[in-house]
């Protein structure tokens, strides 16, 4: 590794002040610190530092995302083969189709996002923060498989510039970047996004007559949204609800394992839970947010289930939380420390209402089948307010306690 380090040392002068490539200093700095933790030593204050840094933290989030990424890649191939009636496609055939679709999404997401990051860092003379390493992986995982790449590029650019850079970059943003990208697509291209893009080439397969009957290419939540406003006995409604029975396409087991259509990374509750275990064990994701988010979702699901006013409400709470982006949002989006509540008490409140609103929006507003996205963005905006009241309550409690001690003395 000495040779590599010597090479970097040799290149450094041309990137430094006065060198030909000084405009690209941030790029050089980013790559150098990527390869080598610099030999910087502590000055004032503590003389030893914990081993952890932002690179390690972000890297572990990527590790936690891997199960969902790998499963999602396979599942996109599997869904494609199912839709054309080739359920016996091999593991590798499924992966081949999945990789064919997923790799370009990842490349576009990182390419556009990091390009903008580098540009802004150069403009401001800042070092490049590692925040986008995670955002850039989250964005492809919340995309439908057939979303046009140019749309992804615009969504990433919008999210990075409007949700992050205008607020000052990493650590300063109010709302989650990956969710902003998803929300941007949802509102900017509603027609395209509600179309047949959830299963690879489903429209073409239908046109060619190879698609299996019943494969509409809609997600579970898309189907459920269609039941709203119709009586429970309507044949269309009963048809949809039959898909959610134990033998249906969207049975609890299928939704838990993840062999259903949906955004790339969101379908498998199991893969996401493995990621959650990694985040919780390493302490990088807040278990308080995840647990309270889950509790909020189950509570709202149970309330609806108890009321059972329409077909959507009859869905059991446990089934609710394995559908759509609920789990993915709970583990990877709601826990984003920059946009979540920063106080420990606030995390409980933030998570609980995030879960609650996810199910509420999903069931009450068929225009937003993906309630979790709206709920988390909403809670992102409320998080500073929650923290404000948590801190104020603590300050008041402390003042009272001290006053009591003084009057007792």
């Amino acid at each position, binding site marked *: 590794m000495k040779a590599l380090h010597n090479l970097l040392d040799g290149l450094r002068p041309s990137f430094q002040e006065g060198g030909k490539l000084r405009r690209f200093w941030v790029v050089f700095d980013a790559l150098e610190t990527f390869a080598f933790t610099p030999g910087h030593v502590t000055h004032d204050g503590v003389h030893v*530092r914990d081993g952890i840094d932002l690179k390690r*933290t972000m890297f572990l989030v990527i590790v936690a995302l891997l199960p969902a990424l790998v499963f999602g890649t396979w599942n996109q191939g599997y869904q494609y083969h199912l839709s054309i009636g080739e359920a016996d496609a091999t593991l590798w055939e499924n992966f081949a189709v999945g990789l064919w679709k997923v790799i370009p999404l990842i490349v576009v997401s990182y390419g556009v996002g990091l390009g903008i990051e580098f540009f802004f860092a150069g403009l401001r003379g800042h070092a490049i*923060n590692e925040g986008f390493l995670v955002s850039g992986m989250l964005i492809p995982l919340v995309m439908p498989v057939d979303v046009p790449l140019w749309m992804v590029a615009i969504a990433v650019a919008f999210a990075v510039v409007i949700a992050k850079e205008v607020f000052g970059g990493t650590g300063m943003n109010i709302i989650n970047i990956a969710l902003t990208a998803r929300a941007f697509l949802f509102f900017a291209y509603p027609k395209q996004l509600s179309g047949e893009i959830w299963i690879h080439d489903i429209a073409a397969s239908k046109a060619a007559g190879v698609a299996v009957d019943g494969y509409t290419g809609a997600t579970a939540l898309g189907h459920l949204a269609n039941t709203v406003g119709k009586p429970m006995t309507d044949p269309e409604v009963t048809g949809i609800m039959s898909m959610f029975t134990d033998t249906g396409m969207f049975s609890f087991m299928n939704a838990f394992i993840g062999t259903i259509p949906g955004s790339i990374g969101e379908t498998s509750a199991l893969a996401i839970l493995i990621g959650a275990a990694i985040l919780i*064990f390493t302490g990088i994701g807040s278990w308080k947010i995840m647990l309270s988010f889950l509790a909020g979702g189950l509570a709202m699901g149970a309330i609806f289930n108890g009321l059972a006013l329409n077909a959507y409400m009859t869905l059991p709470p446990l089934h609710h939380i394995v559908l759509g982006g609920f789990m993915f949002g709970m583990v990877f989006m709601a826990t984003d420390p920059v946009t979540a509540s920063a106080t420990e008490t606030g995390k409980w409140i933030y998570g609980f209402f995030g879960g609650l609103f996810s199910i509420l929006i999903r069931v009450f507003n068929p225009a937003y089948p993906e309630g979790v996205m709206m709920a988390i963005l909403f809670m992102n905006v409320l998080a500073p307010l929650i923290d404000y009241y948590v801190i104020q309550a603590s*300050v008041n409690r402390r003042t009272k306690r001290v006053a009591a001690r003084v009057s007792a003395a």
Partner: protein
Amino acid sequence: MPHTIRIRKGVDIRLAGAPSGAVRDAAPADVYAVQPPDFHGLVPRVMVKPGDRVTAGTTLFTDKTFERIAVTSPVSGTVRDVVRGEKRRVLSVEVTPDGAGTSHDFGALDPATADRGALLDRLLDSGCFAFIRTRPFDVVPDPTVVPRDIFISGYFSAPLAPSVAEVMAGRMDDFAAGAAALGRLSSSGRVHVGVRTGDSTFDAVPGIERTSFDGPHPAGNVGVQLHHVAPLAPGETVWTLHPEDVANYGRVLRTGHYVPTRVIGAGGSEHPAPGHLRTLVGARITTLTGGAAPSPDVRIISGDVLTGTRVGTDGYLGAFAHAVTLLPEGKAPKFLLTSGWLGAGFDKFSVSRAFPTWLMPSTKTWKLDTNTNGEERALVVTGQYEQVFPFDLFPQQLVKSIIAHDLDGMERLGILEVAPEDFALCEYVCTSKLAVQSIVRKGLDTVKQEIG
């Protein structure tokens, strides 16, 4: 049995090279230096010039604001130099000892019967007062303000700290006298001593209020103990000081002579002979490094690894340092796969479970270097400071309010209860590698300036 308070938040960084064994006398130093910057908040007016003869207890400099506060010479000898830095700021007053060991006789005083004013005068004139810190602000106190009570931590919980029993061995009569006098200088008369659960060092001292603390560092920080025993109300002040300085004051009262003894913990993985060494405040650091060869790869710290000051081989033991620590410098770049951020990291001590620290037996000691292990970044992670900050306060929000210069916010969030040292572990664990202690110091200075 004293009341026990269990501290759950915090961490003991188990460094290699802990001091152990009985106290040895360090070799006498060729130069002793008293350094005004150690006494935060004190603006020195130097009272001696090079060549002046001094004895132990002769005033070297006083405070320009509170002229009664004197800082005195630890030894008898000749003033060698008054070292000044930028803008003629006084960095140190150096004294070459004559070896005679003569000291000024202040005359003995009985702490129980002496006049309160006489006790305070003796505290100020002998130079012992300068070793007191006040909460709020963690500065040398205003001698005209009567403190609510006195807080002393008899639990040294910092990494590689010396043993309380060794430091206080043979000093308990001095300590009792000092504590009794200090109690009379406070309005409540209370002297709180925090001890480690099961430690009997202070059991025989009459008139003190003992509270035992059970838990990891920073449970031994006097600020933590104050916060849990009797938190400050607005307008109140308390004095905090180290038990050794209480004993040094007690000796002035009992014998009339000022001898600023320090029993330090000499340690760290690069220290050739870790142990307890007896010396005096301001001794040249090389008398305490066990003969380690000067090397750019070894850092000498006056104090512990969390709050100490980096000094060169020509440096001195700081006024508030109770340890001398030698650590390897971490100047070598670390390749990402072998020892950088992607490595397994078996050699890295981490409070998080992002490294396999948690796999190791709790008896393992660690050889940590001074590498920052990463670059300074924006604050991203939350909930991290809270794990090592045993106060009913919001550390990260407080740090942010200081960065944002939000005076009202700082006060609301409790800056008046804390000292920079209370944030040392926050700084240690910080993923974003912020200089948390110096941020807190800046905040305290700002608030003090604005509201007095």
